[in-house]
């Protein structure tokens, strides 16, 4: 393979791609030229326009002249040529020299709405699997020469393209360098999605919380970039990574900014309430019915006793049973096509819910608690985060079943201790709380009016604190 100095022959390349039936080898006997490419990686129109038509119009002796055009990139390294062909270039062999012409343009999904991060108002375009489309989506929204893109590749076998994006002059270069270093250090065969890439560049692999924000929404990434964060696009993945990330970013949605600030703030607070409900509601039910009967107000007492009286299990098992049922329903609903998914909802919601109470397997108050906390978990905009929180809930329910309120608080303490240990790209994961920065609270716990949001978040450690000012 160290044939860098030897002229690369057509035979060598063809030998490399032995048993690759999808490789096209085209011969131009008139011009004594050969062309090798993957048909499905190139754009047919471009091929016609860039190569075939010019070739048809030249004589054999004019070909040399034509190949001097800049779109034909002369190459002498076999590695480069093979990589080029794999990336959608066509390799043209003429006499002893080889030229690469970029004709990349595979068929891809058009820009559509995001399924997982649906919006009501605001831009509806979402990232697609094509990195260039994604880059274009970002460039279109961020017309600045300061937006820098660095190309890397990951996967020893797959060699996927990864682009690191940042805005020069806003970003703290420590983060960019750290991100690049981590991506370069990845040693695996293949990474198929950016959500998988994220786990390879995590600070702590053993945590249930996502340490980087991944999103399908270009407007979100653009705002993260302008906040001084780094974005990572991976080719063939519709999610884009942004970092460093704080826990509270998962509770914000671009929608908050498209509404009046009071409404946006209310929505955001609602999400935090949803978070608290998700994580504690069922656990509190378990703690109270198992240990702290005295906390129940009198009006509720009779209803609770009555509905609990026919249930044969202790509350903790009752709650776990229902929680697992809900998770099963959710997972089944996610896997099935959407039309059948609705049926699952009906079966789960009505049949299981009603029947379980009537059969005396659970109390109806628990059903409400479980359903409420499940619904609340879906309020959280990030699917990854909502899954993490639902997982943490199980842990709290079990602890509440063991020690009641004490267990619940032990569980919350463990969560807090765990969270305060976490870092994202080396910066604190619970950012506006610790390190404490009240200035940032107006853009994380509430959504302040725009005149208040003058500063970039402290977590990005930018040297260019004030928004809407660019150092030249």
């Amino acid at each position: 393979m160290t044939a860098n100095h030897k002229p690369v022959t057509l035979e060598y390349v063809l030998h490399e791609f032995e048993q690759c039936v999808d490789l096209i080898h085209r011969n131009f006997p008139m011009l004594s030229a050969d062309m090798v490419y993957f048909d499905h990686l190139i754009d047919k129109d471009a091929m016609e326009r860039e190569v075939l038509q010019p070739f048809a119009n030249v004589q054999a002796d004019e070909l040399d002249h034509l190949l001097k055009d800049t779109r034909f990139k002369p190459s002498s390294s076999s590695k480069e040529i093979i990589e080029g062909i794999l990336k959608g270039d066509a390799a043209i062999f003429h006499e002893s020299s080889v030229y690469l012409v970029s004709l990349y343009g595979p068929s891809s999904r058009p820009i559509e709405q995001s399924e997982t991060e649906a919006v009501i108002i605001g831009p509806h375009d979402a990232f697609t699997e094509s990195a260039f489309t994604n880059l274009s989506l970002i460039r279109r929204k961020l017309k600045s020469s300061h937006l820098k893109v660095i190309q890397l590749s990951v996967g020893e076998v797959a060699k996927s393209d990864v682009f690191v994006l940042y805005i020069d002059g806003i970003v703290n270069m420590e983060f960019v360098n750290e991100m690049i270093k981590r991506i370069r250090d990845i040693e695996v065969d293949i990474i198929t999605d950016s959500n998988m890439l994220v786990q390879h560049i995590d600070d702590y692999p053993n945590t249930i919380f996502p340490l980087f924000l991944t999103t399908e929404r270009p407007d979100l990434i653009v705002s993260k970039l302008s906040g001084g964060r780094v974005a990572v696009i991976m080719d063939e993945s519709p999610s884009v990574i942004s970092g460093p990330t704080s826990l509270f970013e998962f509770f914000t949605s671009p929608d908050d900014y498209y509404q009046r600030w009071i409404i946006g703030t209310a929505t955001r607070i609602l999400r935090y309430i949803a978070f608290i409900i998700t994580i504690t509601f069922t656990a509190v039910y378990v703690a109270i019915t198992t240990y702290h009967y005295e906390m129940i107000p009198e009006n509720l007492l009779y209803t609770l006793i009555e509905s609990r009286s026919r249930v044969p299990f202790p509350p903790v098992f009752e709650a776990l049973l229902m929680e697992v049922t809900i998770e099963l329903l959710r997972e089944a609903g996610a896997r099935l096509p959407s039309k059948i998914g609705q049926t699952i909802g009906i079966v789960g919601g009505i049949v299981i819910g009603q029947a379980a109470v009537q059969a005396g397997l659970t109390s109806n108050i628990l059903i409400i608690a479980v359903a409420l906390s499940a619904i609340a978990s879906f309020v959280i905009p990030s699917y990854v985060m909502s899954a993490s929180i639902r997982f943490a809930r199980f842990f709290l329910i079990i602890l509440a079943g063991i020690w009641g309120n004490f267990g619940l608080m032990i569980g919350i303490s463990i969560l807090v201790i765990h969270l305060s240990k976490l870092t994202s790209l080396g910066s604190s994961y619970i950012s506006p709380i610790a390190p404490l920065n009240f200035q940032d609270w107006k853009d994380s716990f509430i959504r302040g009016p725009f005149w208040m949001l003058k500063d970039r978040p402290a977590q990005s450690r930018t040297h260019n604190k004030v928004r809407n000012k660019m150092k030249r």
Partner: protein
Amino acid sequence: MSKRGLKLFFVCVVLLGSVLQMTGCNKSQRILEKLAIDHTIGYDLDDEQKLSVTAAIINQGEGGSEVKQELITAEADSSKEAKIKLSRQTSRNIVSGQLRNTMYSMDVASQGIRKLIENLVRDPSISPRVKITVVNGSVQELLSSKFPNHPNTSQYVDHLLEKNWKNQNIPQVNIYQFTRDYLDDGVDPVAPIVRKKGDNVIVDGLALFKDDKYVGKLSPDYNMLFAMSRGKYRQGEIYIKLDQNDSDGAVMLGTVSSDKKFKVWRKRSGGFVVELFLEVKGDIMEYTGNVLLSNHKDIITIEHGISKYISNKMEDMVDIMKDKRADNVGLGKQVRNSISYKEWKNINWDELYPEVTFRCTVNTKIKSTGEILEIPVPSRE
């Protein structure tokens, strides 16, 4: 390496712990439906002057039948001994974390309820909001009577007291407030009295305590006045019979609110004068007298009438208390706060109390007279 070892250690400890706890060696569980929950405890004295404890328990019938109230009685020297005796009579664990009300027959109350209350406070599972009620008659009889409109007697009494307290008919008296007043110098506790009357239970005035002993009863007429003397009074109603010559009739004042203020003077002869200034505001809801309500001057006479009525009645009330040597209004507190600590410690308030002169000055303001002025008398010509 060691860090991983530590983590493994944690996981092991936590898992072991949870397994141990979950698999049933956990005795501290108090699963809701497996409890017999005390709602009300009543104390009576039987013929041999022995304490008899009655507990109204919220009990879950077997096999998911309706939740109902159960009554069990035991004779015991103390409430806790009674609890042990009571628990022999039921299939579930008796717990008192949901206790709402404690009732004392007048016999028990007049012997002093300090010990009983002390044990209620001592038990951390008992809420400081548990009510204290004196029953005119036998507690057991009251609790075991069935009231047709109210299937659950103990709950009925509890709600009755709660409603009356919210309307400020009676003061709120729970363990916390009773102990607070009992242990404060210069004020004695009170408690509402209830009584069975036909198919209902009624609030039968206030029990006056001297320290922890029941000494006398204040008729329900004084409920409102007592509330006014104790604290801010809001949104109440008061019915007043005026007996002035020119404005005979009765006035019903609605949305009454009052503010109180005490002032203490020294008498020349030694002893104290305590004066209560009340500012009462209200709307006329009902009026049966002859005064023209449209006339501003006459409204002032009504106001004066009301003021006089309230102040007389208030002084009567304090006289009743003085008679029983119970300082339930808290005159002692006012005197204490007006003199030096040394002096307060030197005087014997119990002896001084009946000698204290109490005066009440009321300033009534009628805010409105309702939606109409007056329906004119049909003129006979």
